[in-house]
């Protein structure tokens, strides 16, 4: 039992590790494709789709909160797979399975290429990391003009903070109360008391506001106060036969 649990936990971690290693479904797909060790231009999309679906299924069993975009890709590949395997329909839609295959292959190849050039780009001699400007200003007359250099980032960040602050203030806005007021209850009872020819259990008159305990409680209270108010003004009669017993109301007409 326990060992199973442990295994599950470690699988979860392993899964997180794995998924965190990828930059999304296409990236994962690309990694799987590279393992086939053939030119991407000739990769078997069918085989790749199968691998990807297996991969996701395997981990989906363990870890249900698998990222939605990975699942979308799995669903799409399943669809593509079925299209590739099924006999060709006479009526062709907008895209043939071959076109889809080609589109996916294109995207994989493009991403592979981008990963390659982004490595080349970031490996260039970079200022302050690999190469350096001169540090000396010795020996020459230098006059300083003060200039101000706030960056676009400062500006956008400042604006974002203003937005965020305003959002925060919005969150603090007190919305109108959902509690039932005595006035509302009086109005309501005025509308229905004409039908109360017989002694009626007060509790049956209380509208039910669902599961919210506080709101229901406030509704009982306000209706009770309202019925006392109406009794005082001669519209209703109220009686309670014993302490903590049921309260009954009746129209006084």
């Amino acid at each position: 039992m326990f060992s199973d649990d442990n295994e599950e936990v470690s699988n979860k971690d392993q899964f997180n590790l794995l998924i965190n290693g990828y930059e999304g479904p296409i990236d994962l797909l690309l990694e799987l494709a590279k393992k086939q060790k053939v030119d991407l231009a000739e990769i078997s999309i069918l085989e790749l789709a199968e691998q990807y679906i297996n991969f996701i299924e395997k981990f989906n069993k363990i870890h249900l909160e698998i990222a939605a975009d990975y699942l979308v890709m799995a669903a799409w590949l399943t669809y593509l797979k079925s299209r590739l395997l099924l006999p060709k329909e006479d009526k062709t839609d907008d895209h043939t399975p071959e076109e889809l295959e080609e589109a996916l292959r294109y995207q994989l190849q493009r991403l592979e290429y981008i990963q390659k050039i982004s490595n080349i780009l970031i490996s260039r001699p970079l200022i302050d990391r690999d190469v350096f400007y001169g540090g000396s200003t010795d020996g020459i007359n230098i006059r300083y003009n003060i200039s101000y250099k706030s960056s676009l980032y400062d500006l956008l960040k400042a604006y974002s903070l203003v937005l965020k602050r305003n959002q925060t203030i919005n969150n603090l806005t007190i919305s109108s109360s959902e509690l039932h007021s005595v006035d509302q209850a009086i109005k309501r009872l005025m509308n229905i008391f004409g039908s109360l020819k017989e002694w009626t259990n007060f509790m049956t008159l209380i509208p039910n506001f669902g599961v919210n305990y506080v709101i229901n409680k406030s509704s009982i209270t306000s209706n009770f106060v309202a019925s006392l108010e109406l009794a005082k003004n001669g519209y209703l009669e109220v009686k309670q036969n014993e302490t903590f017993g049921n309260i009954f109301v009746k129209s006084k007409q």
Partner: protein
Amino acid sequence: MMNLNKDIKIIEAILFASSEPVLEEDLIEKINEKNKINEYLKTLEEFYSTRGINLSKTGSKWSFKTSPDLTSELTIFKKQKRKISRAATETLAIIAYYQPITRSEIENIRGVQMGRGSIDHLVEIGWIRPSGRKKIPGRPTLWSTTDLFLEQFGLEDINDLPNKEELKASGFLEKRSAIATISDIAENPLDLNNEEQEEEENLDDFLTENKE
């Protein structure tokens, strides 16, 4: 030994004393034979090409930099200690090669939602900037690289990007996405662009909300 005229000495001294790249026009201003500036700079560039410091041009600015062969000996000067994440690097590369480009186009190419990070970090470092809006519904922001990007990566201009021609020739410069094709089939072609459609009204919304 080259016969050193005063103009060359002046250029050399200015470039040396400035701790950052200098505009070519500022150099011209300081020398006598102004029409010879190209010749002078070329001479110096070549002269320093095999030394411990090299002269190079990025954008319209010139600067001396330490030679890239010496990186491991100069780690004491290193200011950028943090590594740039893979997501940020890929995003930067896509913006550099495909610019101007919208965020959702970048997401299509990478096949992943950007979420937080990347774009704001790249703006923060000063390597990318917004450069207009795409004329499609929602008018999403287009992103491009900055002059600082060229300067820090030692590129004379954006066409100087490594493998740019190769990329063009390969046909991979298209922004189309397989996933977009997929959603066509799902007969819900607008789905991927949804996010772009709400955007326009936001500023107005915000205005009315706050000007009470």
